[in-house]
């Protein structure tokens, strides 16, 4: 235990040359109000984890005082930033810290599924990669080599081998089916690489930037006018992080929910078949708090005939994370978070819809295993898959 000390402000002032992460915080102005910690889903199950504490410790300690636990326990879900009176970008702070400290702090423990996602990113960052990214598509669906609209599949084609409890390719097939129904034959390219989400959020900026440049090359060269993805993480990265590396896009980046909404509004897509389900909606962190897209998925749900949509109590900016960020930090505490969120969903509906394949995987993983407490029957459904069901 440390000896008690009183430090007048100024004696332990921040270091003269703070690192990038500390500068991010200091410039944004934490006022130590504790709102971040109170909102933090990790703190609710682990009282010792506190963004406020980490900030003050970094501020007073000169920048390198983040513990390994604090570094990797953060979900980067952004609930803290959403409630912060001065909008301190805590997720960005942690991301920068991970970039700086990754090499000296062991990430083997928090890295899940044997580092599968990390490996995928590293492999995809290599030059001269040969992929068959269309093998999952199946018969009856039309895709093209060139065209106005790119369907960016994300890592979905590679997920089914690992996460057997989810048919992730189903999301891709549903997306193509919807586009085909609206007269769009999307480009699905073998040149596509991982979007780099996990690499960036787990501190591997170099890998992310390599991936971003490789993706940008084929996307720009294609001459397409739009890029659509059904993944919240890919959408956030392509729309908001890529331009920081490659400059402004010459094309429009859309989440599938935005495209569906537009097609329905234009009369190019009609939901003819009722889907008589009672559903609620899980805002994915990357689509919601990070990309600020809350309405488009809800508008899709409201357009589906026969569907009853009920909101949970914590929605939009206050929505609760699925418990796993970038395939790190999945532990016993994650399970308690997932139990709490699924209890909330099950109290409102019998289907929880999400617009992110990874939220779907994490919640389905929990339901597939041994829940902490019994849960009422609840199915996790992807928004695109649900919309495709209404096509008839």
């Amino acid at each position: 235990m440390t000896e008690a000390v009183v430090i007048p402000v100024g004696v332990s002032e921040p270091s003269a040359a703070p690192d990038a992460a500390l500068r991010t915080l200091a410039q944004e102005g934490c006022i130590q109000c504790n709102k971040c910690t109170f909102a933090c889903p990790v703190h609710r199950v682990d009282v010792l984890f506190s963004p406020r504490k980490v900030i003050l410790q970094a501020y007073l300690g000169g920048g390198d005082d983040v513990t390994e636990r604090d570094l990797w326990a953060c979900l980067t879900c952004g609930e803290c930033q959403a409630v912060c009176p001065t909008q301190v970008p805590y997720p960005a702070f942690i991301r920068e810290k991970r970039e700086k400290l990754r090499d000296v702090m062991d990430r083997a423990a928090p890295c899940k599924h044997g580092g599968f996602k990390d490996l995928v990113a590293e492999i995809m960052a290599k030059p001269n990669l040969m992929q068959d990214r269309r093998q999952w598509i199946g018969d009856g669906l039309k895709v093209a080599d060139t065209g106005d609209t790119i369907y960016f599949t994300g890592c979905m084609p590679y997920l089914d081998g690992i996460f057997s409890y989810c048919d992730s390719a189903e999301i891709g097939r549903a997306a193509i089916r919807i586009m085909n129904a609206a007269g769009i034959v999307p480009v699905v390219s073998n040149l596509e690489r991982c979007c780099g989400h996990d690499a960036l959020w787990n501190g591997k900026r170099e890998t992310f930037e390599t991936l971003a440049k490789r993706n940008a090359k084929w996307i720009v060269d294609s001459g397409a006018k739009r890029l659509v993805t059904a993944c919240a993480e890919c959408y956030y990265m392509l729309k908001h992080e890529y331009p920081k590396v490659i400059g402004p896009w010459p094309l429009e980046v859309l989440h599938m929910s935005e495209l569906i909404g537009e097609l329905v509004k234009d009369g190019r897509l009609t939901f003819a078949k009722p889907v008589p389900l009672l559903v609620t909606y899980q805002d994915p962190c990357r689509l919601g708090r990070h990309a600020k897209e809350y309405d488009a998925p809800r508008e899709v749900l409201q357009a589906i005939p026969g569907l009853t949509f009920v909101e949970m109590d914590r929605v939009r900016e206050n929505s609760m994370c699925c418990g796993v960020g970038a395939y790190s930090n999945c532990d016993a505490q994650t399970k308690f978070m997932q139990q709490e969120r699924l209890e909330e969903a099950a109290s409102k509906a019998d289907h929880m819809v999400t617009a992110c394949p990874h939220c779907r995987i994490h919640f389905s993983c929990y339901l597939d295993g041994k829940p902490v407490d019994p849960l009422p029957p609840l199915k996790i459904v992807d928004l695109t898959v649900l919309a495709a069901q209404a096509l008839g």
Partner: protein
Amino acid sequence: MAAVEHVALERGLAAKGIARDCGELLGYASDASFLTLGVPNLIVFPKDEAECVEIVDLAVKHGVTLVPRATGSSTAGQAVAPPGAVLVDMERVGACDARGHRQGLFVPSVVDASGHAVELKAAKADDELYVRVGAGRTSDETNRALRPFRWSVAVTPSSGYSTFGGNFATNARGSGTPEYGPFGETVNRLRLVASSKAGARPLEITARTEIRRLAGHHGLCGLVTELDVRIAPILQADEMLCAVLAIESEDPERLGATIGRLMKRVASSCRYYAGEFLFVDDAIVRPDDPIRADPVLGSYFAVRPGVRKMVLLYRGRREAMAALPGIATDVPEVSYREVSYAQFQAMMRVRTAATGKSVARVNVPGCEDFLLREPERFGTVLAAMFAVLAGAEGRPVGHHYPDGIVVHYRPQARIDRDAIEKAWSLNLRLRDAVLRPEFSVEDRVEHGLGLALFRDSPPERQKELRALKAEYDPANVFCPHLLDPEAKGRFVGSSFRL
């Protein structure tokens, strides 16, 4: 304090399985005051009253100081640990599930004035009802649980994430105060873990006079663990009156005097639920903010150079505010407009942002909020304030309560040495020009009261506080430094240096 006592305390907590941290605690060195830093020897996270009892027992046994802290955590420095103290984080008390995890969603238990359980679905609007909540619960989460029944907490502080225990400790004000009084007035029953010479002393307090006496105790008397808090039916759109009153003038003294007289009449003739005001200048909302284009509200954001514009926002039950339009008509300088609740909320969002919660800026704390009990003096006070604030960042905002006008002002600054020191010196000038000549410590409210209460209060108030503390904390384990004259210079936030 000898480390051996803390080791013994920590071992005792470990034996009882109480969550705690005794590692690197630099991150707990300040509260929202950022005035003074003190690193605690230990931080404890009790989840319920039983654990609070264990903590107080151990503290008395080992002679260790306890400083309770919750979520809002003070802009006045009272939640900072002095040397050798143990912080007690109260945000989980009565808010955890069986596993000790804080549950954001809960089903509140509702009781009547006698403490009997009540079915909220069957309640009538004029029933006197209370929600029985743990001290770690907040008005945000309680209101979320009550909303489906169309009820809410009667007094909701602007920091909806602050805990009820903290609201009681500061006797907070908020929406509903004009009708129900400060938070302490809305508490009907209290559970408190006080001390005795032998250890913890759990108390249940139901006498309203005693509850009022304890309201605003700032952690001096024990750990509050459970409260019965008054709830009120949510006003429906058709029974609600929302009004915007505006006045502008080149002369702040005249503006303040006019509006002060108007407020006095409103307080004597209307029972309103919320009364708020803000000063509008050209930079209060961004040029592209949609509110500027709003056909009704946009006009409030057009301000001529050199002119002060003040906007008053009232909300309440229509029949209880019937006199408001007439009062406004009697004052030709004031424009009056009834707006929808959504429009009222839009204006309130601007009002909230104007308290300094803007991106890339920090409130520089230390300048107390104050209560002006005589509205006719509002002109003099405003003139003095604006004279000091010329050229500064930040805008005064405030509340109109029936017992006076509360003005909040904190300068804003980027976090760099020059900006903060400049803002801090503005605080000092404001104190010298306005607070010291015009107000006493008893006029300081909410955020500023914490340390000012102990540092500057007159001898009779000190005596009263000491009597209260002696009664509830004879072991002197709860924040004894706050009443310790020796602690003044070295701990109580009397200076700010970056």
